[in-house]
């Protein structure tokens, strides 16, 4: 009887631990081989044959096709430089330069990776569209209300993420430090 009870206990714990850990890791999007640069993180291996089992499970569940490593690399930001989650009711300033790449695009998504509609029909910028200063650096305002210059409208959503994709770029699995790869800073200015 005690054997049976013990076995039952072990099995219940196994199911709880096993499925709980699976749910946890998948809902948090765990993957190995992250390249974090400030608030930006890329997973270059997810776009190659060396993709890990967690990333495989994630893409199967979300239905996305990860960007191939021979094509480009995608950096995702969920927070500003201080680690505060991005909020569409705040004025956020993206400023600086991007790593070397033939082209880049910046796109505004909801946390599930879908586009968010807005009145000016703008979901992002490409490297060709952006207004720059003479030294090549730029400012992008991610804000609920219209701004002059490069304005990316948030439509006032409570959370969003930014994806910066570098196409035909040397940045990849080998990239280690932020000093080789200057990414734009993300700073919250004011919140309404």
């Amino acid at each position, binding site marked *: 009887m005690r054997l049976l009870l013990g076995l039952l206990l072990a099995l219940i714990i196994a199911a709880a631990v096993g499925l709980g850990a699976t749910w946890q890791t998948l809902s948090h999007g765990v993957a190995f081989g992250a390249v974090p640069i400030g608030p930006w993180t890329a997973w270059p291996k997810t776009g190659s044959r060396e993709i890990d089992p967690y990333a495989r499970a994630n893409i199967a569940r979300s239905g996305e096709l990860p960007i191939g490593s021979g094509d480009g690399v*995608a950096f995702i930001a969920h927070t500003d430089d201080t680690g505060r989650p991005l909020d569409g009711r705040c004025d956020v300033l993206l400023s600086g330069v991007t790593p070397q790449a033939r082209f880049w695009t910046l796109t505004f998504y909801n946390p599930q990776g879908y586009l968010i509609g807005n009145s000016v029909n703008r979901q992002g910028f490409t490297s060709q569209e952006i207004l720059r200063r003479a030294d090549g650096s730029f400012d992008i305002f991610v804000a609920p209300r219209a701004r002059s210059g490069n304005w990316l409208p948030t439509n006032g959503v409570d959370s969003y993420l930014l994806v910066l994709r570098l196409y035909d770029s040397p940045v990849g699995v080998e990239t280690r430090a932020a000093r080789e790869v200057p990414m734009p800073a993300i700073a919250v200015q004011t919140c309404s």
Partner: protein
Amino acid sequence: MIRWLLWLLAGALLGGVVHLVAVLLLPRTATNDAYTRLSPIAPVNAVAPVPQPLPQNEVMPFMDPAFAAAVCRYDLSEGSIKLSVPVSPAYTSVSFYTRRGIAYYAINDRAAGRRLIELELMTSNQRSQLPEDEEVTAADRLIVESPTNTGLILLRALAPEPGLMPVAQSVLSMATCRPESQTPKH
């Protein structure tokens, strides 16, 4: 007491095994992966345009709206396929995915180095059966090996500004993907 702790430990260890098995099996049970999402709009071994992502209307998450996209859903069980993609003025890339969405190969226009990206896709079995004449080894023949019989080829052309989207789309509309046996011999 010790006995219960041992059961607890055994349960936790077994839980780890359950977790690993669940993660490994999950891709097979996914009912809404990229291949399934694209199947209704993508005929087998032909190029089909992927609708431009719009808010509330996207085939897949995390699509780059600055790109025009087309897809070739391939099946190599009847033989290899030949892909030809004209290069757009800005940036063009071709990415290969397995049935489960793993990006096993990708190439862009600069790496391909010409006005037309031409590739042959085959399984490693089909490649090993290629006749070994010298023309086969010619450097101008780019062969990609697919680890699976079925999968997706994603063709993408950048529109550096929204007004150039029709150009990018028309470039991709000239791309072809067809079984090799149907390609005219030279």
